[in-house]
């Protein structure tokens, strides 16, 4: 299984943690991004994630390889959800293992930052009232 995965099913953090374990690594850092019940002052009731899967998987794998190389991390994993998510659901999970904590923190932080910038995934927020909105959508025809 690839170290970067797109999943239509709930993220199983216990399984991800088990995959991260490595006796040579003294430090593991995990990041979990969840659907919040608010964003930029609006109440959010659920989210939808859409993905360009072929490109997401190859770009995601590049991000993980960069994190391993730059920070000497021994293992770096990421899984990102697609589909309909409820409040509190995990949308993305990153795990990084390294000999020391500096490298593990830096690698995990790098992965989530780069995934958010580079991996082709989009989210649409649903509100109690009014139409759902794509986040970071392209500007309207001006």
């Amino acid at each position, binding site marked *: 299984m690839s170290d970067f995965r797109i999943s239509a099913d709930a993220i199983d953090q216990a399984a991800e943690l088990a995959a991260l374990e490595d006796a040579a690594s003294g430090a593991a850092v995990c990041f979990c*991004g969840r659907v919040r019940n608010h964003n930029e002052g609006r109440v959010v009731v659920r989210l939808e*994630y*859409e*993905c*360009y899967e*072929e*490109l997401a998987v*190859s*770009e995601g794998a590049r991000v993980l390889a960069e994190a391993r190389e730059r920070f000497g991390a021994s293992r770096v994993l990421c899984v*990102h959800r697609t589909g309909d998510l409820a409040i509190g659901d995990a*949308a*993305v999970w990153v795990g990084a293992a390294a000999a020391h904590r500096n490298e593990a923190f830096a690698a995990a932080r790098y992965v*989530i930052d780069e*995934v*958010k*910038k*580079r*991996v*082709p*995934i*989009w*989210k*649409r927020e649903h509100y109690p009232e009014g139409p759902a909105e*794509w*986040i*970071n*959508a*392209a*500007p*309207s*025809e*001006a």
Partner: protein
Amino acid sequence: MRVRIDYFAVLRERAGTAHETLDTGAATPRELYRELRERRPLPPETGLKVAVNDEFRHWDWALADGDRVAFMPPVAGG
């Protein structure tokens, strides 16, 4: 030449379709997108991303017959 076009997220909604196949004389994604905008209510290309055959490419990448060209809004995962 014939290309397959994929639209994602808000572009899919604006285009009214996720995929189409088109006979075109466009030499680059930029030319292709301008041609598409004449037929569909798509936003300007500023800020959008393009992929050819599942790799990110410049807007001036040379297209070939049979290519899969994808147009995407700015990513918003996480």
